[in-house]
């Protein structure tokens, strides 16, 4: 069964550094998402992406965050200048048609030192 894959599984970064989290969505999917889960808290929506542009974004997704689909297979989340509070598990998800369920990757654990 096709899967969403995320790399790396764990990323350790110094505060203030830029980080890029990578995702390969399921190949024929059209809608792409990033979520995050701070330890002990709910899974929170960050951003959705369709037709090469952001469809929706949450209050968390401020100017420090950006997303990109640089080619036909990758979907990336960039945090420009990381803060301690960015430490979390970041999940990528994709779906085919808009009404279809989202399929999640295994996540990238981001640790900011």
């Amino acid at each position: 069964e096709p899967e969403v894959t995320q790399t790396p599984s764990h990323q350790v970064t110094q505060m203030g550094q830029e980080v890029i989290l990578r995702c390969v969505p399921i190949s024929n999917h059209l809608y792409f998402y990033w979520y995050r889960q701070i330890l002990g808290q709910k899974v929170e929506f960050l951003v959705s992406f369709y037709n090469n542009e952001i469809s929706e974004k949450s209050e968390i997704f401020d100017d420090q965050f950006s997303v990109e689909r640089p080619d036909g297979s990758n979907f990336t989340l960039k945090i420009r200048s990381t803060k301690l509070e960015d430490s979390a598990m970041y999940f990528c998800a994709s779906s085919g048609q808009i009404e279809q369920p989202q399929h999640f990757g295994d996540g990238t654990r981001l640790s900011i030192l």
Partner: protein
Amino acid sequence: AQSVTQLDSQVPVFEEAPVELRCNYSSSVSVYLFWYVQYPNQGLQLLLKYLSGSTLVESINGFEAEFNKSQTSFHLRKPSVHISDTAEYFCAVTHLRGSARQLTFGSGTQLTVLP
């Protein structure tokens, strides 16, 4: 705005006993409802979904959930649990309007099946 409440953060249950994990939602518009399961060190896996039609939906591994519009609930049940069902379970909702379908998650319920 929509929200999801999972009242039980921890549910311990003995093997082969029945279990119910509760989920209530609030939304001003019609919604789709989902249950996702997260095993240790893994991502979120779709367990079952309610999009339309029959209010009782079933998964391949014996779980079922019933959409109750009047009570705004989508409780997850299994008549007999196995050790392998130990995991965290998340209820999620998405609205039917807009150009994308962001999921709003509950806080999760840790199901622990005891031998």
